[in-house]
């Protein structure tokens, strides 16, 4: 098994004809993802590498039975694309777009509550279940199938850690980039819950960073609800207060937002925390009894 995306995923790409959308659609097809449709308003009837393009999500769903979407639409139009997918009845949405206004995302987050859908991102690398489905911009080559679930606020840091796991021949069940924005569709807790329920996942890796308090909430959740071992890593100990460190959501604004406060919460919850990315793979090996 895997979480969120697998062999049953029938993917729709919103913004399939844009530079990023087209490039990554090609890569997702190469890694065997079942890409069934693309949406670009005004380009219905065309195709991209054999994937039919539709004007609207509704048309695409009706014609192809798509059940998941990945969004490459530019920031000013991205929230609209999310609403369109939600109203189109898609259950898994992955928004790659970086730079969506916070107020747009608050409206999206309010609207999605009434829907039976999961939004991953925005400003995220997507979701990848090795050799099953790749709904992401992640480099598929560094992954191998296995039983470690990875959830992260950062893209390249995920690649770094996955690569070290793979080098140790520790495979992954699913890797989920939840995104680096202040308001994201799905938080650590929800993904950790899915890993806990997934019989194939034997260990979860959580990669956090400065800003907000999602890591603290996750720490409480791990302590009270999870039997699956969790290894964590937090980035941003050297970040100064009040400065945005690349990700819009990575900002120290006192209190719970610092890396110190987060790692303190992890320690208190008895979670294995690595001090650098390389140590993560060591701790995972330990947790799996493979050290």
């Amino acid at each position, binding site marked *: 098994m895997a979480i969120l995306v697998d062999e049953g995923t029938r993917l729709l790409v919103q913004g399939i004809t844009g530079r990023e959308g087209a490039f990554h659609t090609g890569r997702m097809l190469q890694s065997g993802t079942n890409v069934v449709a693309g949406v670009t308003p005004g380009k219905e009837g065309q195709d991209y590498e054999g994937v039919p393009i539709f004007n609207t999500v509704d048309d695409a769903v009706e014609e192809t039975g798509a059940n998941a979407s990945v969004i490459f639409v530019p920031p000013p139009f991205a929230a609209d694309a999310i609403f369109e997918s939600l109203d189109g009845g898609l259950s898994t949405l992955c928004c790659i777009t970086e730079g969506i206004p916070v107020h747009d995302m608050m409206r999206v987050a309010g609207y999605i509550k009434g829907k039976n859908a999961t939004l991953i991102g925005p400003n995220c690398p997507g979701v990848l279940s090795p050799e099953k489905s790749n709904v992401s911009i992640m480099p598929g080559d560094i992954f191998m199938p296995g039983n470690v679930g990875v959830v992260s606020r*950062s893209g*390249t840091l995920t690649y*770094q850690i996955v690569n070290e796991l793979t080098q140790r021949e520790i495979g992954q069940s699913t890797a989920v980039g939840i995104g680096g924005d202040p308001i994201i569709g799905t938080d650590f807790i929800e993904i950790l819950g899915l890993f806990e329920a997934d019989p194939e996942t034997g260990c979860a890796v959580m990669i956090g960073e*400065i800003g907000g308090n999602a890591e603290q909430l996750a720490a409480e959740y791990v302590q009270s609800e999870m039997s699956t071992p969790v290894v964590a890593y937090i980035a941003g100990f*050297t970040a100064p207060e009040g400065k945005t*460190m690349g990700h819009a959501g990575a900002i120290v604004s006192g209190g719970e937002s610092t890396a110190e406060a987060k790692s303190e919460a992890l320690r208190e919850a008895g979670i294995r925390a690595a001090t650098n990315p390389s140590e993560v793979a060591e701790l995972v090996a330990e947790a799996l009894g493979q050290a």
Partner: protein
Amino acid sequence: MDLYEYQGKELLRNYGLETLPGIVAGTPEEAARAAETLGGTVAIKAQVLTGGRGKAGGIKVVSSPREAEEAAEQILGMDIRGHTVRRVYVEGGAEIDREFYLSITVDRTAKRPLILFSTEGGVEIEEVAETNPGAIVRLRVDPLLGLLPYQVREITFAAGLEGEAAKGVGRTLTNLYKAFEDLDASLVEINPLVVTDDGRVLTLDAKVTVDNTSLYRHKDIADLHDVEAADVQEQRAQEVGLQYVKLDGDVGILGNGAGLVMSTLDVVAQAGGEPANFCDVGGGADAEKISTALDIVTSNEQVESVLFNIFGGITRGDEVARGLLSAIERAGITLPIVVRLDGTNAEEGLKILAENTPENVHTEVTMLEAARRAVELARDGGG
């Protein structure tokens, strides 16, 4: 994007919030003239994009144009938490009856706007949260419904307000929420919000932060960006679309991806070094972008060595290596550079670097080794 008090007030006035008359001044003479125009007792307030100006002596109350000139003389050029005061706001006075605190921020966990109201105005809200948490009312707004009338009543009742004052504070809150939404603000803070002896509700200080990602639809606000107040390197990076934050150390740091770069900074600190900056060059191996980034990082005179941490993902290590070599050549860097290359085709990339590297470029395989090396080289360079 943070706005100055006078800019924030100007925006809030458009939404019906009442402020005292004020004039911006860049010189003591201008301040004197402003005080004369306004008449009576005026406050001379430092305009800086940071808090704590009151404690730092950045606000003075004076009663004549001559005193205004003297006060402005003292305040202009003052350093407040690393920010140089280049303008003061000369503002008229008022007879204050009661002071409150009112703000709207984004609650990341609830994913909703959060209203904070405190009956203790003029004090930092963090302080009140510790000393008198009962004074604070918290209220979350459904962004799809907007602020509801009952929520406004909850606040005014909690504040113990009656009559005109209750109506005035209620109106202010309603208008402030409208401004928060319209301006795509991530923070609007009025501290203090005052009720005067004659029952008026005034915005005495205003802090407005507009969400950077929304600036494409707020050109007028984007134009308020104060280029002079920005750090030279940060300003240049912003213009070319690079994510750069200046720090105090001597190890310049570049990498691809915000998380990886943050982590690189931490690892350098763990190795006993001090990062000089954060710089995310993003994906790809665009030689021009990398050389611009290298140029910005090394233009900080404190930098003694550079650590370039790249994880080749979709962009393969060999392409990254070629881009990097061409960028180093183009930027003409002579400082020691440690390159750590990992990920897809890292071996090929390292081989290319090994065969063609200029003397000042060192390669390492792991992040930790690279960090140690960069720290050593910074020490050697710094003497």
